[in-house]
Structures are given as structure tokens and as C-alpha cells.
């Protein structure tokens, strides 16, 4: 067990890569597709099971980084250091949980160039785990940016009709935000003399410097999340990406923005966070209201869900920047919930798209008659997205609202409009797709979900209800780390006030 203890995180990253290498060695050609799928599935399942060991072995009472591995690398201080704390643990689990589902979702759907497809996904999984586990800021940046390459290829090769535009937009938009972050990182590293994230979290940067550093990081994370007004890449990317690409994009890649705020902006730039908090609140509320209204008028169901993602991320940023325990825990919970729920929603879109090859809502209607099981699943996930109690969405939203109310009742009011608007467009979607008269012939002919699709839905439903009914399993690891984050933040801010008073 000790080998696992000391190297678990690296193993989690290496196993997908080993899977990719195996797939690389498989002979090209349609006949080998079955083998490729099996290898990919085994790799991701093994990774998931190992990550459960990570969860089981995690000490909920400690706010320190656990499962830390450190190897000196090069330069003055750059090391390969990985570790998880309460905040990053669940993101790693989210990643490893979604990947097998994503892989299975591609069976029978993707045949063209399957080898490269699976390799891209496995490499992406390794990089995503690396983002959440990295404890060296150089390493973090490498993983953060490195994930752009496989995603670019996934959207561009296996995507929809306008995929090239979408993949360019995704890549260049995200890259532009991130290079500003690079400059900020370089400045921080030269100032603090270290690239270690824990050390940087304890280093006190000049208040004026903090402002522009915070903003540079914000440029990157706001695009990633995405926040209004830099969210415009997301609808295009989602609509053009293949179903599996959308699932992983919405499920995990978007969470990196929120994770970035929690890992970098809050602990490393405490004064600037307070300074910009109102700014973020305004942007978030605009995001929630505006994108919800835009979602309401969408005809393409994938675009509708994409805009709803932006709205949900608005909730998350509110939760993060209210800077209290409920808000931050709610934000993290919301991110986890959204990860599963939106992956499921995009998967549902994929299910009907595979049958009818259109994403126009008006082409459907009455699926509750001939696709009963699908209708049930779809309802569950849309209601989870809305935040119905007993589903995961409720817990996250309610915690964020409690936290927001402590910050300012206006913000809480603005955020709750998001809940209502969310219900509106989701019900419009549900009515358009599921309810109503079953008149169209081709819709009548659509078969209900088969065993494979059921196997993908089942774990996600289970998790959604688990998170909704017994959220403590997911909240417990968070408590210590979030409390530590807030205490450190408060201490830093109050000491700044001390200095200015004296």
C-alpha cells in the first residue's frame, strides 16, 4: 500500500498515458476498433478505481496537502510536485469518474480515426488530473495550457460542420487569456524566488502589485470558466464538439477556472480579491441573468445547455467571491454537481442526435411517449440543473445563496433570479423535447435508450441523488481546506489593514 500512497497521483496520470501508448501500438484500421475501445475503457476504469483509493485515504480533518510527491526538476526551484487538498481532491475524482463514461459514450458512435480519438482523450485525462494535482506553478501552467492541444484536435477533427472556426476560437481565446497569466506567474516567481504553490500562497505580495497580478490571472480563469463577457467561445465550442468532447469540456475543463480562482486568486492575492469582489459579483449576476435569457430563446438544444453552463458558472463565481465558508463550499459543490449534470445533459443531447441527427428542439416533441426511460433520465438531470431539492444542484445553489446573503442581500437577490430563469429555460427545453404531442413520424420511430446508454446514465443518476440526499460525503473533505483558506485570507486582509492604520 505504501507504494500507492506515495505515488498515487502520478499513477493516476501515468495510467491514461500508458493506455494511450498501448493504443498507439495497435494497428490502424476499422477491425481493431474494438480493441482500442477496450484498452481505453480499461485505462480509464483503472484510473477511476485508483482515485477511489485516493478518496478513501484522504484525511478529512487536515487542511494540508496530502499524497504529496516532490522531485527536483530543473532551474533554481522548479520541481515536479503534486498533491491534493480538500479542494482539489474532488475535482480529481470528478475527472476520473467522468472519463470512463465519456469513453463508453463513444462506442458505436465514433468509428472514424478511433485510434487518434482515444489517444487524445487519454492524454487529456492525464493533463486534467495534472492541473488539479500540481503544486508547482510551472507544472500547473504546463498542464493547464497543454490541455488545449487535445481539445483543439477533438473539436476540429470529430466535430460538427463549423468545427474549424470553433476549435480556433476555443484555442486562441483561451491561449490569449492564459499568456497574461504567464507574465504574472513569471513576475511572482522572480519576486518570491520559488515556484512552489504552497510557498507562494504564504508569500505576501505588495498590495498594488496584487491588483494587476489578480487581473492577469482573472484574464485566464474568466475565459476558462467562462465568465461574461468572455464566454462567447463556449457556445460555439460546445455546439461543434462531438458529444464526448462536450461532456468533458463542460464536465471538467470549465472547472479549471473555478479551481484556479480558489487555488491562486484567493490565497495569493487576498487584498486584490477583496478589491475586485464587487466587480466579480456584478459580472456574475449579469452572466446569470443575461445568459439565462439568451438560453431561453435558443433553438439549438446544445447551445441552450451551453448558455446554461455559463449561468451556472456565474453562480460559482458568486460563491467563491463572497469569501465565506458556505459560499465557497457551495461553489465547489456546485462545480462538482454541474460537472456531472451537464455531462449528463450533453450526453442526452447526444442520445437524441444519434437517432435523428438534428439538434433543433422544434424537430422533436412527445418523446415521453415512445422514449420513456430517456424521458425520465432527462427530467432528472434537467431538474438537477434547475436545483430541485434532493438533487445535487439544490445543495450547491442553496449554500451559495446563503453565503451570498451574508455578503449582500442584493447579490443574493440577483443570484436567485438565476434560479427562476434557470427553471424557465429548462422547462421550455423539456416541454419542447419530451412533452407535447408525438406527431412527427421520424420522432415516433426513435428507439428508447439501450443497455449501453443506460449504463452511462445510471452512475450519473446515482451520484446526483447521492450528492443531493447525503451531501456530507462530498462536503466533509472540503471543510478543513476551505476553513483554512478563509482564515488565511482574513488574516492577510486584516494584517494589511493593520499596516495601513499604523
Amino acid at each position, binding site marked *: 500500500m505504501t507504494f500507492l500512497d506515495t505515488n498515487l497521483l502520478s499513477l493516476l496520470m501515468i495510467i491514461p498515458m500508458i493506455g494511450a501508448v498501448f493504443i498507439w501500438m495497435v494497428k490502424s484500421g476499422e477491425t481493431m476498433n474494438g480493441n482500442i475501445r477496450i484498452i481505453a475503457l480499461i485505462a480509464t476504469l483503472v484510473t477511476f478505481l485508483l482515485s477511489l483509493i485516493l478518496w478513501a485515504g484522504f484525511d478529512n480533518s487536515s487542511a494540508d496537502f496530502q499524497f504529496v510527491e516532490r522531485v527536483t526538476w*530543473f532551474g533554481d526551484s522548479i520541481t515536479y510536485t503534486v498533491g491534493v487538498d480538500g479542494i482539489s481532491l474532488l475535482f480529481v475524482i470528478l475527472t476520473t469518474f467522468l472519463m470512463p463514461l465519456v469513453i463508453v459514450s463513444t462506442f458505436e458512435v465514433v468509428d472514424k480515426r478511433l485510434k487518434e480519438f482515444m489517444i487524445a482523450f487519454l492524454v487529456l485525462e492525464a493533463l486534467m488530473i495534472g492541473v488539479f494535482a500540481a503544486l508547482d506553478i510551472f507544472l500547473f501552467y504546463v*498542464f493547464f495550457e497543454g490541455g488545449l492541444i487535445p481539445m483543439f484536435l477533438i473539436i476540429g477533427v470529430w466535430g460538427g460542420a463549423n468545427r*474549424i472556426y470553433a476549435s480556433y476560437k476555443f484555442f486562441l481565446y483561451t491561449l490569449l487569456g492564459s499568456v*497574461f497569466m504567464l507574465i504574472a506567474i*513569471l513576475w511572482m516567481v522572480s519576486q518570491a524566488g520559488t515556484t512552489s504553490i504552497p510557498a507562494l500562497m504564504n508569500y505576501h505580495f505588495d498590495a498594488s502589485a496584487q491588483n494587476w497580478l489578480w487581473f492577469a490571472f482573472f484574464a485566464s480563469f474568466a475565459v476558462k470558466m467562462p465568465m461574461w463577457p468572455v464566454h462567447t467561445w463556449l457556445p460555439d465550442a460546445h455546439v461543434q464538439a462531438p458529444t464526448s468532447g462536450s461532456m468533458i469540456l463542460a464536465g471538467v475543463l470549465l472547472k479549471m477556472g473555478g479551481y484556479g480562482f480558489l487555488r491562486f486568486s484567493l490565497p495569493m492575492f487576498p487584498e486584490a480579491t477583496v478589491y475586485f469582489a464587487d466587480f466579480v459579483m456584478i459580472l456574475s449576476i449579469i452572466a446569470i441573468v443575461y445568459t439565462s435569457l439568451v438560453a431561453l430563446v435558443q433553438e439549438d438544444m446544445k447551445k441552450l445547455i451551453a448558455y446554461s453552463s455559463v449561468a451556472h458558472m456565474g453562480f460559482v463565481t458568486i460563491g467563491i467571491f463572497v469569501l465565506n465558508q458556505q459560499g465557497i463550499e457551495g461553489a465547489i459543490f456546485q462545480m462538482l454537481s454541474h460537472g456531472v449534470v451537464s455531462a449528463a445533459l450533453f450526453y442526452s443531447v447526444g442520445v437524441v442526435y444519434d437517432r435523428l441527427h438534428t439538434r433543433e428542439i422544434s424537430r422533436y416533441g412527445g418523446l415521453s411517449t415512445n422514449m420513456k426511460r430517456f424521458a425520465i433520465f432527462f427530467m432528472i438531470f434537467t431538474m438537477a440543473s434547475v436545483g430541485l431539492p434532493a438533487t445535487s444542484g439544490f445543495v450547491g445553489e442553496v449554500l451559495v445563496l446563503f453565503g451570498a446573503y451574508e455578503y449582500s442581500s442584493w447579490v443574493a437577490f440577483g443570484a436567485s433570479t438565476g434560479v427562476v430563469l434557470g427553471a424557465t429555460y429548462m422547462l421550455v427545453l423539456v416541454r419542447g423535447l419530451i412533452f407535447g404531442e408525438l406527431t412527427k413520424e421520424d420522432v415516433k420511430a426513435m428507439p428508447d435508450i439501450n443497455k449501453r446508454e443506460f449504463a452511462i446514465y445510471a452512475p450519473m443518476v446515482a451520484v446526483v441523488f447521492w450528492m443531493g440526499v447525503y451531501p456530507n460525503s462530498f462536503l466533509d473533505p472540503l471543510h478543513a481546506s476551505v476553513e483554512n483558506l478563509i482564515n488565511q485570507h482574513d488574516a492577510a486582509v486584516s494584517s494589511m489593514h493593520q499596516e495601513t492604520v499604523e
Partner: protein
Amino acid sequence: MSAELPILAPAMPELFMAIGAMVLLMVGVFHKKDSYAVTTRLAMILMIVVGFVLVTQSSGGRELTFGNMFVSDGFAVFTKVLVLIASVASLFMAGQYLKDQKIERFEYPILIVTATLGMMLMISANNLLSLYMGIELQSLSLYVLAAFDRDRVKSTEAGLKYFVLGALSSGMLLYGISLIYGFSGTTDFDMLALHIEALDGMNMGLVVGMVFLMSGLAFKISAVPFHMWAPDVYEGAPTPVTAFFAAAPKIAAIALFTRVLATAFPDMVHEWQQVIIFMSLGSMLVGAFFALVQTNIKRLMAFSSIGHVGYALIGIAAGTQAGIEGLLVYLAIYLTMTLGTFAVILTMRRGAESVEDISDLSGLSETNLPMAIALSIFMFSLAGIPSLAGFFGKWFIFKAAVEADLLALAVIGVVTSVVAAYYYLRVVKIMFFDEPVEAFDKQKSKGLSLVIGLSALINSPVSYFIMIAPLVVLASWASKSLIF
């Protein structure tokens, strides 16, 4: 002065090279059959042996000889090794192309050897006169190489353009040298530094001379505003020659540039820093924006190399030892990226002709996946996307810039690299997203495959775990040896 023989030991590699070049000339002339193959093989062996001698006999300290005109220090060893690697690789890659274009003549490896010799002299120059001598030896060889495919108009045009513009820039260089000599009384770098230190205020004559000198050198590295020869010459010259151009002379000239500024003009930092910043900004912007509309892949690479020179100049502009270290890491990685890319370009043949349009790469991922992946690695590396080696170079360069307070330069640098990422991505997009066109001829040259494979390996994330640490250590050692 008494007629003593100067200490030959530090210059042993160059002497070897010079004698070797002359021997090769004889071999080429007298070996009637197969003269190209024999000469090339011998030339590669010569350069490898010279490299060996260079690395083993250098003490790492600063050694002067030939009346202080020739210096050998860690910096010189590092950059000379890079140049030698570039030259050997160019020779490796050239065979098949030259045979197909029917220009397989033994003068080719000899010219490469003499050009390399010139570059080594440039890097080791400690006096304005030996600087000029090295530059001219290198340039004359390169002019002829550019026009090597003498039956094709494009090649002779390229050679002529290069020659005329190069001669003009050499003239500017000499003018600058003469001004510097006139106003300081010496051409030796160390003496110049002492002279300038002893000066009370700023000597306008020296500044003007320095600017002329820098202009002449800027031409050699194709930095803005003296970059305009590069796209035409790169496009017209035979592709292996272009590969050589993009790699070796750039490294040598940048190393020379660094040494001149660091050793001879350290006290005039404020004057030359501004000039370098201007050149760097211009190069990055030109390299990013002008490449967006290119359709010929060799021209694209020309602009790409202009952009990369801009980034390298940031390292010099920083004016610190960290800047030089960043520069050296950047150059080493740039070398591998460029050689790899040109090696892939060399495989682009269809029928009897070599094709150079970017659109000819359409769908390469379906006709030849390993090649497409290799080229993608190079493209992403050139763009500086993390997880590939090119990012490392950028990290060190920008770190040095930020530490030297050149924040605006760093910000413009990163923004231009995003712009440049567009056309690098476009190549990847064409290979992976577009419908395949007629496939290229099957590539037979083993040397080419070796270069492509090796470069791809070095640029891939594998390089992270193995190569970057020793490279950084070496660069650090080399940069420390340069007096600042």
C-alpha cells in the same frame, strides 16, 4: 612585436576545420565518381571530430589567443556546439533533395564546412576585425549556397538578393567599425570596454558607430528592420540550404551580437538596450502578422524565424546574465524545432518536383500519420504551447525580461505569440482537419527520417523529463562565462 607563434590550443578546432576544408576540396576534385557522397561523409566526420576536440580540450575558462583577437570561453563552446549540430544535421538532410534536383555536387558540403568555419570564427571573435573576417567568410559561403541550384531562376535570384543586400550590410558594418576605431583608437573588445568606462560622458561618435555595427549585424540575423531579404532568400534557396540558413547562421550571429554588446559595450547598456528593444518588438510583430497571409511554407518559416529572433533578442535586451541564459536555452530549442520542420518540408515531394505550398499538406494525418504528428509537434513547439519544448525557451526568455523590468516587452511578446499561434495552428488544422490531397512520394532517405524522429522526440514532452535540466545547467555555465 616579436615573431612568436600564437598559442594555437584554443583555436585548435578552427584550425582543424580550415585544414579539413582544404583537404575536402582536394578530395572532391580528385575523387571522380561519387564525389558528393564521399565528401559529405568526410565533412560530417570532420565536424563531429571538431566538435569533440572543441568540447574536450576547452578548459571552460576564458582563453585568448592570436593577439587577443580570438577568445574561447564557455559561451563560445556552447554556441559552437549548437552550430556544429546544425551543420551536421543539414548535411544529413540534404542528400536526397540534392540528388532529386540534380545538383548533387561536392562543393555543397565544402561550402557548408567553410560557412561553419566562418561561424565558429564569428563566435570566437574578440576583435572587430576578426568579427568582420568571420562574418565575411560565413556570408560568402552562404551567398554561393543560396544560388546553388544554379539552373533555377528562383535560386539564383535568392543568391543575388542575398549577396547584394549582404554586401550592403557588410558595408554598414565596416563603416560602424571604422567609426568605433576612429573614436576610440582600438578594435579590441576588452580594450573598447576599458576605453568606454574611462570616458566621462557619452561619445556620440561611438554611439553612431555602434548603431551602424548593430545594423549590420541585425541584417545577418534577419531582425527588423533589416529582415526583408529573409522571405525571398528562404523561399528561393534550395530547401536544405534554407534549413541551414534558419538554424546555424542565426545562432552564430546572435551569439556574436551578444558577445559584442556584452564584452565591448557593457557600459553603454542604455544606448543599445533601446535599439535591441526596438528590433525585438519589430521582429516579433512582423514575424507574427506578416506570416498570417503566407501560402508557401518556406516563406512562412522565414517569417517564423524572424519572430523567433525577436524573442531571442528579448534575452539580450534584458541585459542580465539570466537573459543570456534564457537566450542560450531558447537557441538550443529553436535549433531542434527548425531542423525538424525543415526536415519534414524536405519530404514534401510529388513526382519530380518538390512542393512548397502549405495546402499541399492537406490531410497529411490520413496519408502519413507519423509525419503529421511530427510536424504538429514542431508547430506547437514553435508556437510555444506548453507540454512541448518551445515553451521552455519562452519561459526563460520572458522570465529574464520580467526580472529586468521589461514588462511591456514581455506582454507584447506573449500577445504576438498568440497571434503567431494562429498560423502554426493553421498548419496543424490543414493536416488534420482538411480532406487529403494526393500523397507525397514515399520518403526514402534514412538521414531525413533520423533527423525528423530525433527532433520530434526532443521537442515532445519526453524532453521535459530528460533533457531540460542538463540543458539549463549548461546554459547557465555558458552564460556565466561571458563577462558582464
